[in-house]
C-alpha cells in the first residue's frame, strides 16, 4: 500500500546547515497517521550504501527528531500523506546529479502480528 509513493520525486536537496549530506521527502505507506513512537524505522540506502540511523534525523511539520528519540514521542504524529523530511549526513558532499535512493519504513501497527510499512527505490536528481 502506497509503497511507490514513499519517496517524493521532488524535494531531494543538500542539507541547509553546510554539513555534507542531504534531505529527502518521504511519506508513510499507511492509511492513517501514527504517533511517532510507532515509527520503528525509516531506513535510507544511498547509492547502495546504508546510511546509519544515527546519521539521519526526521522532521514532521517543523519538528525535528533523532531516531533515538522517536520511540518516546507519543504526542506528535506523522500524518497520513504528510511529507516528512529525512535529513542525512554523509562523509563527502553529495555529487550533483542522479542518486539511487531507497527508503524502508517499518511501522508498529497494533492490530497486526507482523510489522507494517513498505519500501521504495527511486533515482532522484539533486536539486541545486
Amino acid at each position, binding site marked *: *500500500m502506497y509503497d511507490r509513493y514513499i519517496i517524493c520525486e521532488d524535494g531531494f536537496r543538500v542539507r541547509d546547515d553546510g554539513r555534507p549530506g542531504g534531505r529527502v521527502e518521504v511519506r508513510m505507506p499507511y*492509511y492513517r*497517521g*501514527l504517533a511517532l*513512537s*510507532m515509527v520503528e524505522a525509516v531506513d535510507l540506502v544511498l547509492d547502495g550504501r546504508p546510511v546509519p540511523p544515527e546519521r539521519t534525523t526526521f522532521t514532521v511539520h517543523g519538528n525535528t527528531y533523532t531516531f533515538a528519540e522517536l*520511540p518516546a514521542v*507519543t504526542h506528535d*504524529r506523522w500524518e*497520513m500523506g504528510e511529507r516528512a523530511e529525512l535529513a542525512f549526513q554523509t562523509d563527502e558532499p553529495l555529487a550533483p546529479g542522479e542518486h539511487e535512493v531507497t527508503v524502508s519504513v517499518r511501522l508498529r501497527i497494533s492490530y497486526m502480528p507482523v510489522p507494517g510499512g513498505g519500501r521504495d527505490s527511486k533515482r532522484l536528481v539533486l536539486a541545486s
Partner: protein
Amino acid sequence: MTPPAVPHTIRRAVSLYSYQHEYFLRTMTLEDCVAATAATGAPGIEIVPEQSIPGFPHLTGEFADTWSGWMDKYGLTPVATNAFLDTKLHPDRWLSHDEQVASVRRDIDVAVRLGAPIVKATINFPPEVMAAAAPYAEERGVRLLLEVHAPFHYGHPWILEHLEVMHRTGSPALGLMPDTGTFVRRFPRVVSDRALRDGARPDLVDYIVKTYDDHGDTHALMDIVNYRGGGPVEFGLARQATHYIWTEPKTMLPHMPLIGHIQAKFYEMTEDGVEYSIPYDEIVAVLVEGGFDGHLSSEYEGQRHIEDAFPVDSVEQVRRQQAMLARLLGETR
C-alpha cells in the same frame, strides 16, 4: 434486480476511507472528499479521524466548525467515526487496560465533537475494553460497534467472546458493525491480476483463485503452492486468500438487533455496476429482511491493488457503488 418489496429504513453513506488515495496524494482536499460524498446522493458520511484530521487527537474548534459547516453546505449527516486502539503505542510495553479505555473514551469524545453517533471499534479491541467503555459511550450518546472484519465471522471464538460481553452487559451502546469483506464470494480479480503483474505463475494464480472460489479449504494453500513450485509472490497471494472469507450474508440475521452500521467494503465496481466479488444484492436482501435501520457505508479498498499499474479513480468507483446501492435499496430503478 427487483428492489425490495417490503419497506425499509436503510440509508446510504460513504466513508472517507474510500478517497484515501487522492487524499494521500493531495489531489483531493478533505473538502473535495466531502463534496464527492455529497455528489453520490448519499445522505451519510463516515470519517476516519486519524486519517483526515491533522493533529489528531487534538481537535481544534476551528476544525470542528469547518466540519460542521461542510455538513450544512453539502447537506450531509455524520454517521460514524472509526477508532483504533494502539495497544503497541510504546515499544517496550503494552498499553494498560486503563490506558486502553482512556483511548476509547478519547475517540468517543472525538465522535461527539464531529456529530457522529457511532464509533467503529477496530477488530483488535478486547471485549473487556468494550465493556469498560460502554457506560461512557452511553453517557455521551454514542454507540461503540465492533467491526466484524474478515477473516472473523459470527461463529469465530473472538466474536463469540465479544457477543458474550454484549449480551451479558446488555449495554445499548455496544453492538456490531459488519464489514462486507466477510462476504467475498469470488476472489477479487484486482488482487490476482496484481499478483500476475508481480510475476506470479498463472497456473498457480488460477489454482489459488479456484480454491477460493470453490470455497475449499484454504488452510494449507500455501503448502500446496509450495508443492507446486511457487515462491514468494505466489505465497503472498495464497496468504491473501486466507484474508478474505465467504460466509452467507444471512449469518447476520440472528445478530440484527446488535448491528448498527455496515461497512460496504468493495474492491472493484465493474462498468456494469456490480461488485466483482461481493453479492450486494444478497446482502441488501438480508438487511431488509432483518429490518436493519442504519447506513450502508461505502469502503473502497481496491486502490492498493491497482496503484502499481493503473490510475486510481476512487470518486468513480464510489459513484458506481452508490448507484448500485441506490438501485438495490429501491431508491432508483
